[in-house]
């Protein structure tokens, strides 16, 4: 089933329901995964998160901006195998600051208001991922790709 509207809506409802996602970066080819609190724009073109600049994920992205993020609805129960959904979002991430970040930061804090102090710290980097593709996995092994930007 590849009804584009349904796919986009499913992805959006999955992102809406989850606070955290698994970010993938790499260090000289070695994969590295991190849990981050994310937010996104409704057109799915941007996904964003925050990190201190002294972290591995930050250094990894500085060296290579290609990243992926896994967001899923698992409940850690048996039913996950037919019920859970997961979306893998791929794209390129950059630190964004100043005027360009204002609106996206507002969106981020609306979703994660408790991270205000964290986000406001001068050592905290606001990272914006330009989304290229979303890969949706449902009912165990049904996989659908949605190209957001070529």
């Amino acid at each position, binding site marked *: 089933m590849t009804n584009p509207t349904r796919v986009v809506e499913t992805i959006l409802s999955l992102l809406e329901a989850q606070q955290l996602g698994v970010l993938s970066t790499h*260090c*000289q080819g*070695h994969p*590295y995964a991190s849990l981050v609190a994310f937010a996104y724009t409704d057109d799915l073109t941007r996904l964003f998160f925050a990190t*201190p*600049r*002294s*972290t*591995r994920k*930050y*250094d*990894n992205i500085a060296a290579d901006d290609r990243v992926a993020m896994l967001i899923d609805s698992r409940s850690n129960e048996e039913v996950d195998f037919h019920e859970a959904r997961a979306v893998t979002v791929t794209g390129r991430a950059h630190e964004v600051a100043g005027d360009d970040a204002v609106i996206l930061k507002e969106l981020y804090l609306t979703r*994660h*208001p*408790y*991270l*205000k*102090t*964290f986000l406001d*710290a*001068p*050592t*905290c980097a606001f990272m914006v991922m330009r989304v290229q593709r979303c890969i949706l996995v449902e009912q165990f092994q049904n996989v659908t790709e949605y190209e957001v930007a070529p």
Partner: protein
Amino acid sequence: MKLVVSLSEIREEPVAWVGGKASALARMKRHGVPVPDAVCVTTEAYRLFVGEAGLTERILMELSRKPFAEMRWEEVWDAALRIRNLFLTTPWPPHLYAALAAGLEGFLDDRPLVIRSSCPREDSAESSFAGLHESYVNVRGLEATLEHIKLVWASLWSDGALLYRRELGGDVHLSSMAVLVQHLVTGEASGVVFSQSPQDESEGVVEAVYGLNQGLVDGTIEPDHWRLDRETGAVLEHREPLRSSYLGPDGLGVCTYPLAEAKANKPPLMPEEVTDVFELACHLERLFGVAQDLEWTLAKGNIYALQSRPVTTLDSGDTTGRNAWYQSLHRSYENLTALRGRIENHLLPEMMRAADEMAEVPPHTLSDSDLAEEIGKRLEINERWVLVYWSEFIPYAHGIRLFGQVYNDAVKPEDPFEFTTLLTHTPLVGIERNRHLEELADLFRTHVDWQGGEGFGGRTLSSELEEALMAFIDTYGALPWVEGKGSRSQQTRDSLVTLLCEMARHPAAAEFIPEEAPKLEERFLGCFPEEEKAYARGVLSLGRSSYRLRDDDNIYMGQLEAQLLRAVDEGRQRLDNGLKGPGADQLRGEIERFGIRTTIKSASSDTAVELPVVKARQIMGQPAGQGVAQGMARVIRTPEDLAALKHGEILVCDVVEPNMTYVVPLTAGIVERRGGMLIHGAIIAREYGLPCVTGVPGATHRIETGDRITVDGYLGIVTIGESGDVFKQA
């Protein structure tokens, strides 16, 4: 659920909605006991407020930086201040504001109010939060009322309340609060009454003061005290204090006034009034079924019940003493001002005299037994001042805290620790000492023989430099890493030269003045109306004095200890030189006592050793000095480790002892196991504008000298190692 209910409406509302205090007052009112008119802002309003803007999660994140059970009181205080500021700076959600304004509308007029906590679990027979949650007297108007409701809510998270909940073993986090808004009844006399004395179950107690009972409750005004026989109501004893002042309302808030002579000579209650007050408490005991602790006021012949709660100290694990300890965490302006007078006018001069007197007795001129006696005497002098240090100097640090709270209430800054910026560059002895040290380093740097340090290798220095070194040592004593073995004076001199060479090789560290610092004083004072400016200036002056002593007391204590060390050194030298006989035994005895003396150093509580396969990468502490620094860690496990510290390294230690101040200008940042925003290390770091993270669990065990670390003084995070390190073996 309604957000605001009047006392007469409270009948079936569960205590969980209106809290114990409101519930008890409603019951008294129903039974005809005069109580001030009041409405109750229910716990639902609290729930809606903290539910907005992620406040609940922000509070919990603040309290979860490390396991709560491991937080020191200072750290809990810091967290409480941050939480309090969250309440102050979080704007009202518009719908909640509108609902409260509508609910309070019919009750508010131009009469003054009292805003009290009414916590669902506040007062029961098992526990009493009396005095731990805030009450505010003489508040007027909607805006001020709402503001104080926020402050009462915030007091649910005060350091005292948090620590008390921790001790009671309940969940620190699960809490809610209702708020009682009462009309202020300004009685001629007020006080407390226990239908059954916490000390003796056959007795009751009445305490009374002139004016408002706030003065009695917070300990500012000493009350008249009556012990009564519970059976007969007969007065067994009446203890009269020296009556000199009373607490009354002033513009906004309360103020201490002198008592007219006629009143000062007369108890605040007539004998029959003492009986009436006691009768009322007994009546309430019958009504509630347990002994009552009642706050009352006597106005125009009527005794009003302000609040009543079970007496907690009979048959319960809780004791007045414990709760009193938590209450003592907060001291009033009056109390601290008196302490300041005692410290500045008596204790410090006395201490300096003691050091001077010891300095006049050079140990090498004494006979063996006189020397032993002198060591004994100096041990006692040190002991005495260590006690004073704990009982007077340490509590005086509350002056900084009081100022911080007043500053935040007035200015409502985004950063709850902005007030510390206003306190930096209060002249500190430790910084003054560092200035002298830097002058010496500059003599080195500009000396004709210096040549980038090469010229000083292995040579004696010119006589003017040697003289300057000796003058410095005479004034400030030896560096802390010089231990008394062998020829101490040579070691003292050599270690100072080593430090000065390291300093001279690099440009001098500048003291740091934040840009906004000069404006903050104006900003603070500008928040007060003309008639309260004197108070604001007084609190600022108290804050500065307290801040200064926080550092200086250690230096003065160091001077006393230096005199003790001089005598002990002389004794050791004589023993090392083979001294025999009774004089030697005496000396040995005193030196043993010296070895086990009490000092002001705090014991390290941290001995955990990490397994090599488990290594910390990031450790959360508290952001105590803004900025970010990267460098090699210099871990201080013994004082000697300080000697090896190089320019640009990051000082990692258990506790920044005041004697470590010397090396701080060489460092790029500070990491400390002991936590707090106002501890010595944090104060000194801010003086030099150094990034500083305190409260880092296991700092000196989890970090190794030579580790490359990042100190994030904004987020309070220490990162160990390079990010790529972990992949090297992969």
